[in-house]
Structures are given as C-alpha cells and as structure tokens.
C-alpha cells in the first residue's frame, strides 16, 4: 500500500508548514485512511443517485399518458439533485481523504478534517507512548488489511473506552492501512527515542 503509507517525504516542502515541525524533526511516514473505509459513503451516494431514476421509471409506468408534460421541471429538479449529490460526495471525500496521520521522528500528528473549513490537529510525543495495539475486525478489514490503531499514552485519560477517537489517554485512529505494521513502527520509534535518552 505505497500510496496509503508514504515514506521518503521531503519534510521541508512548504505543504507541511502548517504542521510546525521542530528544528531537526523529520516526517518518516504519512498515513491516509484506507479507501475501503469510504465504501459505505460511496454506496449510499450511489443508491441515492439511482433512486430518482427508479422513481421516474415507476411513475412512467403508472401514468398511461407518461410524464412528457413535466419533463422541463423534472430536468431542473434532477439537475439540482445530482449537483447537490456530487457536492455532498466531494465534501465527504475531502473529509475522508484529508484526514492524515504523520509519524515524525518525535511525534505522532493526527490531522483530522471535520467538515467545510474545519480542521483539527492533535499530536502525541512518541516518548509518551505506553502501548500500541491494532484491531482488524470483519471481512472487509481482514481482506484489505486495514483497521483501528490504538495508541495508549502516558497522559491521564478522560475515558476508559479506547474506541472513542481523539480522546486523551487513547489516541485512536480508524481505517488505518496495515495497522499491525504501523503499531510495530511506532513502538520501535518510541523505544529508539527512550533508548537515546536512557
């Protein structure tokens, strides 16, 4: 999954300025959510896209003289509906695709896109990592090898539930590609950092 887990990143690229990297800090991995996590939204939009066509087909059968008198207004309504649907799909895709996890040599930075012009960045020092676990459940996740990555931190948690994303104590990231490998990578980087100090 080279396009989902990027390595060899030029940390000096202006595109990463908003991350406010420390001097000497380098981005080792940039991880995006697995595309299979977007399938549900895609299927819903597809169903919503097909629904008016089925409806028109049914109405066309029901009315013996057809719907030819209403064609202009139906065209306006359908056009508006599909433009709305495309905009909704594009917005959902941005929310999905622009959620990125950066693993640097010092920190874990989770950039979360939360709607139109709303973006949340949370970070965790790799030194604070206590435990990392990966969860792959269900057919889709097992087939495409993606799932939940749970990073347990040294900070006090606001909940005991590791499945609630973005809470203190647990750094939980959904739809992560190859979560077992990433869990190992994070733990190895944590050990390297702690080892350097110790």
């Amino acid at each position: 999954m080279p396009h989902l887990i990027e390595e060899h990143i030029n940390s000096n690229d202006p595109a990463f300025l908003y991350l406010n990297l420390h001097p000497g800090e380098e981005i080792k991995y940039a991880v995006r959510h697995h595309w299979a996590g977007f399938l549900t939204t895609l299927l819903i939009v597809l169903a919503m896209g097909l629904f008016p066509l089925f409806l028109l087909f049914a109405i066309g059968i029901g009315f013996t003289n057809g719907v030819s008198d209403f064609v202009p207004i139906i065209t306006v309504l359908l056009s508006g509906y599909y433009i709305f649907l495309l905009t909704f799909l594009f917005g959902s895709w941005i929310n999905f695709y622009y959620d990125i996890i950066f693993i640097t040599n010092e920190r874990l930075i989770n950039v979360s896109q939360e709607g139109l012009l709303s973006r949340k960045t949370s970070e965790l020092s790799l030194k604070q990592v206590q435990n990392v676990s990966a969860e792959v459940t269900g057919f889709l996740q097992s087939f495409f090898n993606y799932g939940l990555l749970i990073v347990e931190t040294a900070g006090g948690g606001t909940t005991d539930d590791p499945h609630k994303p973005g809470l203190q104590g647990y750094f939980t990231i959904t739809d992560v590609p190859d979560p077992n490998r990433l869990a190992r990578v994070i733990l190895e980087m944590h050990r390297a950092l702690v080892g350097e100090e110790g």
Partner: protein
Amino acid sequence: MLNSYILIGYGLFLAIMLVVNLLYFFQVFKYRLPGDASIPVLSTHIFLVLLILVFSGIYIGIK
C-alpha cells in the same frame, strides 16, 4: 411549464452550490500534499458538475 420563479429558485440554488464548491476548492488547494489524488478527483468533480449543468441547460433550452 417552467415559470420565472422556478428558474430564479434554480439560479439561487446553483449560486449556493457554487459558493460551497468554491470553499471546497479553496480547501483542496490549501491543504493538498504533493503528489496526492486531490487534483484528479477535483477535475473529475468539476467535469461531472459541468456535464450536468450543460446537458440540463441544453435540455431546458430546447423544451
């Protein structure tokens, strides 16, 4: 069949959609990363929206 109120309403709706889409475009150009899929997806989105607008416009014009 299409009176001016319907067309004004449709125009307003399209204007709102245009503003929303422009905000999304701004977001894409601000936060996209080098070599990611943003530009191909954005181009496809623009193409599909224009396709709907042009064909519906032609169809409404003919009728």
